[in-house]
């Protein structure tokens, strides 16, 4: 203040105007203040605009609730988004709805085991508009809608069916049927009315079902379920006054191609005519079997799991409590061993995935390869056998028996799934019982011949 006063005194006393610095500082302060003022005016405009939009949106939300009360079929009342042009603004009206089985508990079809039947539907409407301020709240409106007729009966049950696609979202328009489970109906009776196809959320509701066991099936042309069946079915038990839940994963199949011994191209290679291929996914194993197919490439249509499939040659059977299965075709089941200073281990080939209806990249299927020197063009057969030592693989309790047919040249390179094999020849297809000795075999891939006759094909590679 004293400085200012001095300044003013000097201003009034002498006639030496303002210096440039003072002018610049004054202008800066003015600019700062006016920026603040302009900013606050702009935000006032934005706030009042949002307030006006909220008034319009509140009426649109109320209208949407009235639209929801208009539905001819309460089961068809699902999630919907629409936009409305009004006063030059675009308003987005989002409606979401869910069945409620117990106050405070939404019921999503297909989850859990069901339990409490449907009571009413809750509807939530949320309206937003273009150019909303980030801090502005959308307008919400909620209601609950009761079906016109009773949908529950204390002496009857409900089946909630959920059909999801490979992406895990609801699959609509899938035909659903439920019939009494013939093996053990337990009181089940044929349905009075056929269930509706699934709605936009992938749900359908089978109401007033007589208690008992039902076989629920889903079907749609060109679709495949997670068990690789075109018509998926499950058995579900329904009790009186309760809801049973059943879920399916159902989508358009994708094409997966196995290239047997695809990593070996030095000489032409023969594979068994009835070679199995195991497609491993996180969901389980699918075994593709053929009876007379020598093609090194095989295409299979399978459910398009997002994680894809790893393909191995041979019939892989996981270990269970009652059986040791057939583990040797799977390289990852082979223990890590040390041989002449190096560590060796087995690993499965990479998984390949595809979108529904798409085609996956080719899956290279590594196999054990051996060249046989056999004269007289005999018929050839390979039978899996127990490994002599644990180092020779995890074994295969469920015997694989593969035929090659008649050989056409004295030197033949064959590919077999990993594991221990006995090789037999015979002059006719019916008499293939003469075992082939070590002298006629020369291994191309890693392996050994034990006791002069047992061929061990080893998938393990050197650890880097």
């Amino acid at each position, binding site marked *: 203040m004293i400085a200012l006063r001095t300044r003013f005194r000097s201003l009034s006393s002498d006639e030496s105007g303002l210096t440039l610095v003072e002018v610049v500082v004054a202008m800066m302060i003015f600019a700062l203040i006016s920026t603040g003022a302009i900013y606050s005016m702009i935000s006032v*405009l934005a706030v*009042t605009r949002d307030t006006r939009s909220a*008034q*319009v949106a509140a009426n649109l939300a*109320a209208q949407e609730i009235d639209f929801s*009360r208009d539905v*001819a079929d309460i089961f068809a009342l699902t999630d919907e988004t629409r936009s409305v042009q009004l006063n030059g603004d675009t308003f987005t009206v989002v409606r979401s709805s869910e069945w409620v089985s117990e106050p405070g508990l939404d019921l999503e079809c297909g989850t859990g085991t069901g339990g409490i039947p449907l009571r009413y539907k809750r509807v939530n409407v949320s309206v937003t508009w273009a150019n909303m301020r980030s801090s502005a709240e959308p307008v919400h409106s909620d209601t609950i809608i009761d*079906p016109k007729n009773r949908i529950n009966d204390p002496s009857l049950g409900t089946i909630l069916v959920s059909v999801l696609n490979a992406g895990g979202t609801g699959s609509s328009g899938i035909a659903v049927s439920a019939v009494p489970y013939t093996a053990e109906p337990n009181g089940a009776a044929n349905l009075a009315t056929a269930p509706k196809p699934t709605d936009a959320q992938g749900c359908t509701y089978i109401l007033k079902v007589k208690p008992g066991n039902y076989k629920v099936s889903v079907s749609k042309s060109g679709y495949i379920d997670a068990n690789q069946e075109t018509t998926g079915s499950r058995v579900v038990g329904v009790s009186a006054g309760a809801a049973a839940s059943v879920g399916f994963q159902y989508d358009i199949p994708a094409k997966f191609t196995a290239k047997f011994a695809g990593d070996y191209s030095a000489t032409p290679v023969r594979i068994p005519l009835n070679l199995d291929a195991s497609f491993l996914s996180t969901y389980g194993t699918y075994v593709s079997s053929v009876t007379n197919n020598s093609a090194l490439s095989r295409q299979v249509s399978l459910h398009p799991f997002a994680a894809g499939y790893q393909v191995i040659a041979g019939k892989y059977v996981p270990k269970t409590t009652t059986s040791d299965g057939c583990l040797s075709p799977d390289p990852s089941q082979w223990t890590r061993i040390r041989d002449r200073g190096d560590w060796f281990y087995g690993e499965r080939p990479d998984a390949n995935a595809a979108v529904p209806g798409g085609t996956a990249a080719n899956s290279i299927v590594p196999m054990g390869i051996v060249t046989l020197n056999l004269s007289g063009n005999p018929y050839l057969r390979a039978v899996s056998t127990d490994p002599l030592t644990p180092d020779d693989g995890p074994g295969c309790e469920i015997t694989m028996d593969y035929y090659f047919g008649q050989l056409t040249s004295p030197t033949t390179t064959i590919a077999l799934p990993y594991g221990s094999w006995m090789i037999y020849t015979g002059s006719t297809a019916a008499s293939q019982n003469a075992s082939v000795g070590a002298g006629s075999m020369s291994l191309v891939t890693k392996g050994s011949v034990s006791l002069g006759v047992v061929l061990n094909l080893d998938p393990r590679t050197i650890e880097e």
Partner: protein
Amino acid sequence: MNFLRTLLRRARSDSGLGLTEMIVAMFVLGILMTVVVGAFSSFSRSFTEDRAATDSTMVATVGMNELSRVIRSGTEIPVGPVAGVPQSNRPVLVTASKEEMVLFSYLDTDSDSTSTLDPERGPILVHLKVNATSRDLVESRWLATRAGSYWTFPTPNFVTLTTPVPATSRIIASKIVVPNGAESPLFTYLKTAGCPTATPTCPIVPASGNALSLAEIQTVVAIEVAMKVQADDTKRANPVTIVNRVGLPNLGIARVGL
């Protein structure tokens, strides 16, 4: 800087400003004034438009609130048997046209019972009409009186709405814009009967004239109100439209199917 200092030094002398200096100073001042005046006028215009739009919205909102209250409380009225006609329900609406509506409503009613001992409150008769010249939406109410088991209204045939004088009459919205051809009118009456399956409710188009016939009135299940208001006489801001659809829950018609 040296030039400025020279200028300042010269300024201390009594030699005044040269013409060039004067012109430059005026030029700079001119630019500054243009910017400031431009900003000021654009802000003031924005705020005027904003206020006009807000006014329109407020008028429309207040009107819509009242309309949706009245319509949502719409009710049928039982009428006693007269001249051999058995007891019947009079429909919610008495008159229904694009800008005029007469209906019965069970709304925060002041309808008096015939006796102070009887605490029962009766329905009201509401007349909603847009004045053709002033474009004000006027709401007039008549109270019911009890006659035996039935309610009666002072306007016996519900047509001469000027006599007797309504219990209340007020403007609930003003400056309602006449909708152009493509826009929905203030009131659209909706029915469920005979609508296509894709749209469970559809508008009723009067068979003749602007007003719905009695048969058409009996099919009304919901009323769509599209209120377009221009509160600013200078029309600097665009009019505001608020749309709402109000069902008639007292009707006893469940529009929700199974």
